[in-house]
């Protein structure tokens, strides 16, 4: 046998061996090590601390379960959600994932049949009695419950630096007229009136939803998402005009900053105010800033624009038993009281002890009980993700050209494309 044939024979054997390995049936799974994979975008400061606290509580009860903390960083989940979709569509769901309550959960995952209903869990735990009715409505679809809300955040908060306000004798503005009068005074002092950090644009959409609610009031605002309020109407135009005017008072580098960098400007006294959700409170605490003041933004006193992080049970979750215990913990008083003070949000349940919470969250808990609750647009509660994406595109152009007519036409078209308006 020549040397050459020998080589050929050997290579053939190697190739065949590789093919055989490739065709070998998958090894029967060894009795699965107990695991729990939780997918979220909680990676920084208080939110990561809160998540780890929940893991700690879970492991106290089930020490033999290994928790896999699958996180994808990025504000409002802009990077995490695409990663989640790829996994879900590919048939590799995590055991449970963070998802905003409302249309984001329902339109993306429930109507498409990716989730399991959680009615039994809600009955066993008596949650129908402890979660507010408004929240139960938002997380249910077709008569079933689909996820367990862990917390409630408020989107409409105007944050300011108390020291700067006291030194100048300023008061947080209640109306848009007061806002612009105050903004002029700030400008005269060389302070940027309104700090905005809209890299990735969602912070501008967030600002717009707050102005919308402040302009048209809670009922008409809710009607925008059901097609009852006309997007071509005068209130939407007025809101856009107000926003265009507000943008005149915004830091020019807003598209380079994130929301927390915008908050830094307020902390440093370089900017007067910022309109952002109440996760700013956790940011302030983490940065040791004690002079933070807060108020409802113009026109939204008595209105609570709410969003909530929830966890659900995807079909085909690899560790079903462990997930149900996780959800039980997420909805429990113990779990929510441990998580929320760290995360800087209030409990979705009614019966949490206010003494555990900081000064801002105490006021938020009071408002939560008495205000009119409306869903947030930028954070998935009010509109489906594809609708929010279209509105984000309109906002991207609007913050630059401030063309009210064009933006309004774009918003009306987006409502049509979303299948809500006719």
């Amino acid at each position, binding site marked *: 046998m020549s040397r050459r044939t020998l080589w050929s024979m050997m290579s053939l054997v190697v190739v065949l061996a590789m*093919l055989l390995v490739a065709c070998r049936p998958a090894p029967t799974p060894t009795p699965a090590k107990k695991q729990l994979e939780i997918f979220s975008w909680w990676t920084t400061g208080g939110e990561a601390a809160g998540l780890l606290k929940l893991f700690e509580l879970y492991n106290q009860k089930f020490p033999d379960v290994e928790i896999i903390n699958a996180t994808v960083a990025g504000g409002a989940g802009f990077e995490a959600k695409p990663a989640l979709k790829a996994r879900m569509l590919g048939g590799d769901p995590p055991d449970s994932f963070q998802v905003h309550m409302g249309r984001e959960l329902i339109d993306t995952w429930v109507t498409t049949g990716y989730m399991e209903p959680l009615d039994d869990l809600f009955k066993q735990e008596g949650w129908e009695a402890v979660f507010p009715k408004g929240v139960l409505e938002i997380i249910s679809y077709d008569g079933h419950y689909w996820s367990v809300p862990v917390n409630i955040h408020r989107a409409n908060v105007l944050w300011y630096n108390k020291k700067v306000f006291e030194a100048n004798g300023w008061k947080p503005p209640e109306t848009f007229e007061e806002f612009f009068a105050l903004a002029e005074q700030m400008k005269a002092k060389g302070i940027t009136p309104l700090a905005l950090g809209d890299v990735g644009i969602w912070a501008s959409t967030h600002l717009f939803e707050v102005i919308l609610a402040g302009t048209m009031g809670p009922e008409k605002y809710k009607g925008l998402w059901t097609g009852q309020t006309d997007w071509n109407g005068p209130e939407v135009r007025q809101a856009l005009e107000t926003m265009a005017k507000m943008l005149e008072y915004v830091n*020019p*580098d807003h*598209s380079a900053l994130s929301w927390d960098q915008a908050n830094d400007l307020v902390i440093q006294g370089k900017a007067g105010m910022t309109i952002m959700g109440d996760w700013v409170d956790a940011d302030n605490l983490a940065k040791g800033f004690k002079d933070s003041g807060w108020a409802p933004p113009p026109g939204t006193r008595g209105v609570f624009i709410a969003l909530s992080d929830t966890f659900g049970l995807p079909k085909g979750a690899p560790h079903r038993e462990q997930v149900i215990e996780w959800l039980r913990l997420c909805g429990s008083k113990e779990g929510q009281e441990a998580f929320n003070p760290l995360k800087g949000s209030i409990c979705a349940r009614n019966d949490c002890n206010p003494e555990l919470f900081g000064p801002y969250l105490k006021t938020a808990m009071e408002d939560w009980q008495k205000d009119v609750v409306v869903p947030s647009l930028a954070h998935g509660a009010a509109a489906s993700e*594809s609708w929010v994406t279209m509105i984000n595109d309109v906002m*991207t152009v609007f913050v630059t050209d401030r063309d009210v007519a064009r933006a309004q036409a774009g918003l009306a078209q987006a409502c049509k494309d979303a299948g809500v308006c006719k």
Partner: protein
Amino acid sequence: MRRLSWDRIISILLILPSILAIAIFVYGFIAWSGWVSLSNWDGLRPDLSWAGFVNYAKLFATPRFQIDIRNTVVFTTFFLGACIFLGLGIAILLDQGIRGENFFRSLFLFPMAISFIVTGVTWRWLLAPGDPATGRLTGINVLLGNLGLPLSRWYTDPTVVYIQPTSAVGQFLQQVGLGFLTTPNFGIPLAMFSIVIAATWQMSGYVMAMYLAGLRGIPEELREAARVDGASEWQVYRHIVFPLLRPVTLSVVIVLGHISLKIFDLVAAMSKKGPGFATDVPAYFMFETTFQGDHYSQGASIAIFLLVTVSLLVVPYLIYSTRREAEV
């Protein structure tokens, strides 16, 4: 018919696994994307019913996509131009036999080893403009401010420079029926230059390496002969060196061109879509449309568009180079 020799069977068997893998994971998925782009799949649940070319028609009518094409053209032009200018310049300087050439070569080549994400984040910080009105400057603007130089808004600048319809040139263009050239869609978004700077910083060292190899391949006798014939140093470059570097330039254009057409990571890390889509690119639009907006068929049509544009660049080059190899 030629007898199938044992050797031949072996060689076919040996490359079979990679052929299969490429057939499925490259060409199979390209075909799949093509199919999705012609379907009605809108929403999370797959719907592969036939839709024809409506997705493409809709795509080209989308203002954001028109802006994206403009941005890609601007980015490609300036990125290629800057890289070739800098790369060739540095290569010629290094070719003069300076001391420490190895050190400088590694120094200039090094940025290429960094991922575009890291480059993007770093340049995002460096080019964060701050707010000149209140004197709060950040990044490179601090340096410019201290030197008394004019400040730039970098990638936060929404300005698009285009031929004004009221200007003399604009009026002339309108008269000859080229009025569409006087719209922002045929302008230059200033924010894009920040992306160009970051990308050039990363890739010009690579271009330098290619040109340096090309320069080393030019026989010294040719230059000597030209000098003997009385050519000045500039004429040596103009008539001997640059023509002989043409194949290198072609390779550079192909390599950088397909990077710039497909660019995603740098933009995603640096400025995302930018103010008024000033730094948006088709790949980023594709990402948002598909995975945030759930418009899967629309996203697939952008993917196919990108594939076609890159092929337009690469395929003629492949044909050209295989032909040349065959001739040799």
